[in-house]
C-alpha cells in the first residue's frame, strides 16, 4: 500500500468538511475522485499532502505512519526534519499550476531535486530535460512560465512533481483552469502516466476521462465517500441515489 488514510476527520471553524474518510491507494493504481463543489475533495488531497492538518485519523505512506492521533486527541506528525523525506513520497499538481514565475522552466523542474533532495545537479538537469521532452516541452526549457500557455504550464507543473521521483501523484482538478482546447494535452499526459503504472489520485470534473483512465472511482458528497468502485459500475450503474443524481446533473 502506498497511501493509507484512515478515519480522517477535518473541520474548518464550525463546519465539518471530512467525516471519517478512509482512502487506501495501491501501487500502480489510478483513483479518480468526483463529487459536487464543496464536498471536500480538495481538502482530502490537502490533508494527504500535509497542506492541512487533520483533526484525527491516521496517514501512512509506504507503511510508515506519518500522522496519527493515538489518544484521540491532537494529531501527532513526524518531526519537521523527517517530513522533508516524506515529501518526496508524493507530488501534487494544482489547479492553478503554481509555477515559480521567476524560475525558468528547467529550474522550476530541477530546483527542488537539487536544493531539497540534494541530488547531483548535472544528473537532475539531464533527467529534467528528459521529463520536459516527455511532456512535449523539450524546446521550452529556457522559457519562463509567463511565456507558456496554460496547458504548457500545467505540463511543466507535472514535470516538476515527477522530478522528485514520487511514488504517488495527486492532481486537484488539473484541467479546470484551462481553456477546453488545452485540456486534452494535459489529460493525454496523465493517461500516458497511467499506462506507465504511475500511482495517481485525480480529483476531476472530466467524467469521461475519469471513466477511461481510472481503476477506481470515488464519489464524495458532503464530506463522505458515498460510493466507490469500478468506473464502469459507478458511472454505468451507480447503487446510491446521490451518485445517480450527481451524474444525471452532470450530463445535462
Amino acid at each position, binding site marked *: 500500500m502506498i497511501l493509507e488514510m484512515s478515519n480522517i476527520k477535518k473541520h474548518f471553524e464550525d463546519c465539518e468538511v471530512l467525516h471519517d474518510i478512509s482512502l487506501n491507494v495501491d501501487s500502480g493504481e489510478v483513483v479518480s475522485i468526483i463529487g459536487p463543489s464543496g464536498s471536500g475533495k480538495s481538502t482530502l488531497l490537502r490533508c494527504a499532502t500535509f497542506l492541512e492538518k487533520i483533526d484525527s485519523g491516521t496517514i501512512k505512506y509506504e507503511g510508515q505512519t506519518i500522522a496519527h492521533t493515538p489518544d484521540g486527541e491532537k494529531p501527532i506528525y513526524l518531526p519537521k526534519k523527517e517530513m522533508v523525506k516524506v515529501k*518526496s513520497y*508524493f*507530488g501534487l499538481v494544482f489547479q*492553478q499550476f*503554481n509555477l515559480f514565475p*521567476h524560475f525558468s522552466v528547467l529550474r522550476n523542474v530541477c530546483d527542488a531535486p537539487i*536544493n*531539497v533532495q540534494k541530488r547531483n545537479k548535472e544528473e537532475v538537469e539531464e533527467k529534467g530535460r528528459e521529463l520536459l521532452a516527455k511532456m512535449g516541452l523539450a524546446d521550452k526549457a529556457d522559457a*519562463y512560465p509567463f511565456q507558456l500557455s496554460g496547458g504548457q504550464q500545467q505540463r511543466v507543473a507535472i514535470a516538476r512533481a515527477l522530478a*522528485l521521483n514520487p511514488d504517488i501523484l495527486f492532481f486537484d482538478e488539473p484541467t479546470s483552469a484551462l481553456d477546453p482546447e488545452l485540456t486534452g494535452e494535459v489529460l493525454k499526459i496523465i493517461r500516458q502516466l497511467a499506462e506507465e503504472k504511475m500511482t495517481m489520485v485525480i480529483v476531476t470534473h472530466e467524467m469521461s476521462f475519469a471513466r477511461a483512465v481510472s481503476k477506481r472511482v470515488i464519489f464524495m458528497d458532503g464530506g463522505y465517500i458515498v460510493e466507490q468502485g469500478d468506473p464502469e459500475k459507478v458511472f454505468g450503474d451507480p447503487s446510491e441515489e446521490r451518485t445517480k443524481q450527481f451524474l444525471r446533473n452532470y450530463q445535462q
Partner: protein
Amino acid sequence: MSLLTMILKMAEGLSKTCAIFFLTLLFSLPLGMIVALLRMSKDKVVSSVTRFVISVLRGTPLMLQLLAVTYGPYYLFGISVSRNKLIPVVIAFSINYAAYFAEIYRGGIESMAKGQYEAAAVLGYTKTQTFLKIILPQVIKRIMPSITNEVVTLVKDTSLAFTVSYQEMFTIGKQIANSQTSFTPFVVAGVFYFVFNAIVDFGMGKIEKSMQYYK
C-alpha cells in the same frame, strides 16, 4: 564670493551627503525587513508593539527624530553629544527609513499568492528556503517602484541634517546663504539634488530592468 568657490565649498559637503545616503540605505533596507517580519509575527504582542513603533516613526517628523537621536542622550543621560554627527544622523535616518521600508516589504509579502507557499511546501522546501528563494525575489520585483520612491525622497531628506548642523552640502549652502545674504546657494543645492536624483533614477531603472525577464 564667486559662484565657483560657492559651488566648490558646497561640493565638499557632497561627500557627507553621500555618506548619509548610502549608509542609511545600507542599514535601513535590511533593518526594514526585520521590522516587517516582526510586524507580521504571529505573536500578538510583538506585532502590535512593532506596529506602534512604526506608526510613531512615520507619524512624527524626521527632523524631530534627528534632534532626539542627536541631543536626546545628552538631555536624558548627560552623555555628551558626539563630535562626529554622522553617527546620530545615520542612526536616525536608518530607523526612520526602516519603518517606511518595513511597510513596503509587508505589503509586498502579503500580496504574494498562497499558491507559491503551497507549491514550495509540497516540494519540500523549508520555510527559510521558501522565503529566500521563492517569495523574496518576487517581492523585491513587485516593490521596486515603491522602493525607488523612498530612495528619491531620501536624497532630498539628507538636507534635514542641517537641523543638527552636520556639515553636509545643504548645511554648508545654508551657511553661505546666511553669511552672503544670497539665494544662489539654494539654487546650487537644488541643481545638486536634481542631478543626484537623476543618477539614482537611472540606477534604479537599471535594477528594475534587470528583473523584467519574468512577469
